[in-house]
């Protein structure tokens, strides 16, 4: 049997009762809390016994404090006198345990407990969550701004859709945390004023667990969809990025704890961890730039229609660049063909809609991008349902052809015949 077990435990700092219950239950099952990491709580396997766990707060404490911090030691000394042994600490939360049958509780005055929790929450909950809330709002604003500027790019990117789907959930979750804490505080203030106990709450734990399941399900759907739509490279890139972030968090947490063990001051520990964070983030940026090349979606396939085979195009060699993006709603293939050593070009953008009516919406978005006046053409000879045509002052011409499921934009620097357009539309994929 393994000596240690790791569990992902999600608690907000004010949910002390839920935490105490959970730890005591784990002890009865033979797992004693050993330490708290950045992602997992580490339990030590021991004989099952009815150990009581209790949480108290050190409002002026910090995760960067040295392990022999005098304040922490003073609390440890008092707790030891009352028969409590320190299990570990988690920011301002100090977790103790005892095997005594009827120990003196760590907290015997609920008004004092409430004051300590409120002071701790200001630093460990309200401030970081407010910063996170601002970041999420900024990211959402940025996404809407870029989405309204380039809606087709947004809708045809699985990663952007994933972020767009998750950010409002994160926003709701953060607001829920604030609301639950506000309700808990109000109930606790009332209860304590009447001589009762601080309120009990485990709501955030349940909500956060549901959120985690949602995130994992969304990430798994993204990976499966990316792989199925021939974008395995994108999924691998996202997975590598996610693993690097997790690795970074674990390494920084390990560094913080090591510095803490070695007695570094709070300021020194914090400075070194921030410096390591910046260095690792810079290294990660470089790695991910290279990774985008290593994890590209394989060799480029030849274009469906070779520009050199079109009636008025030069028949020599053409350079081809293809990019693909897809979401469950819309896929986009962009093929750029350039005459090798010449000036001619042929661009073909294909939007494949997965929802009824989306093709028409794509056509409207593409038409909005044309600043010059365009003409509606007869689409029947092109085997399309709609056709629009525009001439640019540069001498290039562009067509938008569409039916119920796809919209194709073709731009060329040479004249396109009806046969060319019909081929380009029919073979666009």
């Amino acid at each position: 049997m393994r000596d240690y077990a790791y569990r992902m435990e999600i608690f907000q700092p004010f949910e002390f009762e839920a935490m105490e219950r959970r730890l005591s239950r784990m002890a009865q099952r033979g797992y004693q809390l050993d330490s708290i990491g950045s992602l997992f709580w580490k339990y030590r396997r021991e004989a099952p016994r009815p150990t009581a766990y209790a949480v108290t707060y050190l409002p002026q404490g910090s995760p960067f404090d040295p392990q022999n911090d005098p304040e922490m030691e003073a609390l440890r000394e008092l707790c030891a006198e009352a028969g409590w042994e320190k299990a570990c600490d988690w920011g301002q939360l100090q977790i103790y345990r005892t095997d005594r049958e009827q120990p003196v509780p760590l907290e015997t005055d609920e008004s004092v407990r409430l004051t300590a929790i409120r002071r701790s929450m200001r630093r460990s909950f309200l401030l970081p969550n407010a910063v996170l809330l601002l970041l999420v709002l900024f990211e959402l604003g940025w996404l809407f701004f870029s989405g309204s500027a380039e809606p087709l790019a947004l809708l045809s990117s699985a990663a952007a859709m994933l972020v767009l789907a998750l950010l409002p959930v994160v926003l709701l979750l953060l607001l829920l945390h604030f609301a639950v804490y506000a309700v808990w505080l109000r109930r606790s203030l009332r209860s304590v004023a009447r001589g009762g106990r601080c309120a009990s709450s485990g709501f955030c734990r349940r909500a956060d667990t549901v959120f985690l399941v949602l995130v994992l399900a969304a990430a798994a759907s993204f990976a499966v969809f990316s792989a199925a739509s021939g974008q395995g490279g994108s999924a691998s890139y996202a997975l590598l990025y996610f693993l690097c972030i997790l690795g970074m968090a674990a390494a920084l947490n390990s560094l913080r704890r090591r510095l803490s063990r070695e007695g570094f001051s709070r300021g020194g520990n914090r400075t070194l961890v921030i410096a390591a964070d910046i260095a690792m983030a810079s290294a990660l940026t470089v790695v991910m730039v290279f990774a985008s090349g290593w994890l590209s979606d394989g060799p480029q396939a030849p274009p469906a229609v070779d520009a050199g085979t079109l009636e008025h195009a030069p028949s020599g060699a053409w350079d081809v660049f293809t990019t693909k993006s897809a979401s469950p709603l819309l896929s986009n293939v962009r093929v750029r063909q350039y005459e090798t050593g010449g000036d001619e070009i042929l661009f073909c953008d294909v939007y494949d809609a997965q929802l009824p009516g989306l093709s028409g919406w794509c056509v409207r978005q593409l038409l909005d991008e044309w600043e010059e006046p365009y003409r509606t053409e007869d689409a029947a000879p092109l085997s399309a349902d709609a056709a629009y045509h525009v001439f640019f002052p540069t001498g290039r011409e562009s067509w938008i052809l569409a039916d119920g499921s796809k919209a194709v934009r073709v731009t060329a620097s040479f004249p396109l015949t009806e046969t060319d357009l019909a081929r380009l539309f029919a073979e666009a994929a």
Partner: protein
Amino acid sequence: MPREKFQTLTEQMFYILLCLGEERCGADVMTEASALTNGRVAVGPGTLYNLLDQFLRDGYIEETKASGRRRSYRLTEKGRVLLREEYDRLRARIGDYERKLGKGEA
């Protein structure tokens, strides 16, 4: 509504201040409070730590010595006044009770 800070004292606050009428370390306060009340009042170490910290910051007690991790405290003049005010408040309540119901009435 929340209690105004130290406007009235909880039982725990009262006994901690009372025990610190003489110089004592934190662990002795826990023992003394329990002994003084025949075990009726137990002061938990978390509560004691936070209250000592608050009393110290507000000047109701002072640290007299620290040997290793063990620190000793003593009531200041400001602390004595606070304790006396609480005592007077309790006496007033007892007086009101006795005037209304008489001594020894339940």
